[in-house]
């Protein structure tokens, strides 16, 4: 047997086109503030931050098998650290984002220590309880308003790094300049998240993650460090979720424990996005967030009907198409924009068939 008679590929035709399209889209997205209306920029901010949260939840649940119902703990804690930093210590909010990520990371350590003792449904409920504990504790933090909540000081917002530059460069008011800045930050965060997740899944650690999801016992017996993988995924997700949370509330300007730790806003909606789009794929949350946004725009005026429809849609997807919308699309077309499967192929290409599917 010639040693080099096989090669390994992950790329597909579609993925190369997708990469090209993504590059074009990215350039357009960066340039967006030069021509788009402010409301479009805000909508994009919403989409991007929800997408980031969804990607991280998907990393946890879809890839890591860690179904957390407590991600609002990191959203809220991150956001509160940004506010606390700005109000109490005068940290610039942009730097505060990093502080938020680190704080969420630090919170994730005891959380993981506790939650990793639990499995499956226990884990889900355990994370939820931890989030409640964090919410109730933060509600005791009187310096940032306790249960009342607080606003970001106007100075901190208006003098934020980059705002003045944008004000003069785009000739806009400071509130608009803030929107542009937070939009760019969200864009950077989203690109880093998707890129990072994709890169991670293509490393041997990503492969191990998939193996663990399928069979923990067996994965451990071939040398996969399951504990470490879980820690990595959980901490990374907490870090990213914390930054995203801080960014959301930086743009929002106001915070309260109920809004920052809302299980509906930061976990339920995120779960719906991932599920409706398709769990366990990078494409799924992207599709999901677009559907979610469309629904919200169309139905927001119908009050509780909007939420009822969202709930019903989530149920319907789970009942009739557990792979989500992207699952339907990729099943029909075989399309994969972010391929991760390694395929073994013959180098000479002649006996391609032999490596292809073969039924006994």
């Amino acid at each position, binding site marked *: *047997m010639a*040693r*080099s*008679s*096989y090669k*390994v590929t992950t790329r597909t035709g579609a993925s190369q086109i997708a990469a090209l399209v993504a590059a074009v889209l990215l350039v357009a997205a960066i340039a967006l503030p030069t021509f788009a209306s402010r409301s479009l920029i805000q909508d994009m901010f919403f989409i991007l931050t929800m997408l980031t949260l969804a990607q991280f939840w998907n990393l946890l649940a879809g890839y890591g098998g860690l179904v957390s119902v407590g991600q609002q703990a990191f959203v809220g804690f991150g956001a509160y650290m940004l506010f606390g930093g700005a109000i109490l210590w005068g940290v610039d909010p942009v730097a505060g984002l990093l502080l938020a990520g680190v704080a969420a990371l630090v919170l994730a350590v005891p959380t993981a220590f506790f939650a990793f003792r639990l499995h499956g449904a226990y884990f889900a409920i355990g994370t939820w309880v931890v989030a409640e504990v964090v919410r109730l504790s933060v509600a005791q933090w009187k310096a940032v308003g306790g249960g009342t909540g607080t606003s970001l000081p106007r100075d901190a917002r208006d003098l934020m790094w980059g705002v003045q530059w944008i004000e003069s460069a785009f000739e806009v008011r400071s509130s608009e300049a803030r929107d542009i800045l937070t939009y760019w930050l969200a864009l950077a965060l989203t690109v880093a998240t998707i890129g990072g997740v994709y890169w991670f899944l293509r*490393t*041997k650690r990503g*492969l*191990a993650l*998939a*193996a663990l*999801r*399928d*069979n923990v*016992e*067996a*994965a*451990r*017996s*071939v*040398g*996969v*460090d*399951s504990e470490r993988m879980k820690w990595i995924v959980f901490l990374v997700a907490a870090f990213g979720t914390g930054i995203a949370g801080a960014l959301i509330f930086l743009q929002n300007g106001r915070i309260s424990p109920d809004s920052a730790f809302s299980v509906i806003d930061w976990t339920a909606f995120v779960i719906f996005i991932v599920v409706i789009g398709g769990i366990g794929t990078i494409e799924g949350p992207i599709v999901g967030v677009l559907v979610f946004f469309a629904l919200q725009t169309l139905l927001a005026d119908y009050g509780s009907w909007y939420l009822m429809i969202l709930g019903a849609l989530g149920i319907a997807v789970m009942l009739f198409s557990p792979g989500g919308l992207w699952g339907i699309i990729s099943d029909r077309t075989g399309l994969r924009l972010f391929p991760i*499967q*390694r*395929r*073994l192929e013959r180098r000479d290409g002649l006996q391609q068939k*032999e*490596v*292809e*599917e*073969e039924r*006994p």
Partner: protein
Amino acid sequence: MPAILSLKDVSKSFGALTVTDSVTFDVPEGQALGIIGPNGAGKSTLFNLITGNLSADKGRIEYDGRDVTKVPPMQRCLSGIGRSFQIPQPFDRLTVFETLLVSATHGRGAPEREVEDDCAAILERTELIGVANRPSGTLTLLQRKRLELARAMATRPKLLLLDEIAGGLTEGECIALVETIRAIHAEGVTIIWIEHVLHALTSVVERLLVLDFGKIIGIGDPDEIMASREVREIYLGIEI
């Protein structure tokens, strides 16, 4: 030959049930040891203790001259203990090839590029190359058993533990499998093999261990063991 594995007085209980009862034995490097014994004798449990999937209540397990009694499974794997499961445990959504990649990269701590060719070679050897890109969950039983073997081999084990991989195979399949195992053994890998299909087992192993109610009731030359009165009564059920 130095012992690659040695168990000293190892015990394990589930509640009131003692499944492994003060087990002591050595396996010299390069040997092929067979384990037989009635159902529930504690054979698979013994494997779980060696690999670390279960932790011993009592006693000491040494591997390669080191005490590994408290070492977690994945580190034992890294130091060269590979295993197959009695009930195949594939990674359902990974392809066969990816399964071997996981095993080779993590089991040896090597980067992906370096092990790709080796994985392909193992797939050829275990006759799985034809299904390399199929998700493991779609394999037939025979293919799953082969995958168990292939996955264990991909970690390049020095000590290979095989749990009933011939169970449920036809004669022809069985012969092919025995050939493969012989070849692996010939490369110097130490093998411990649990099997009820005796003719397959005895055609490979050099030494046989009999387990009953968690106790070793015989260890030694296969022919002698098979001929012994105890084994004939307890295991084969031949009345004398």
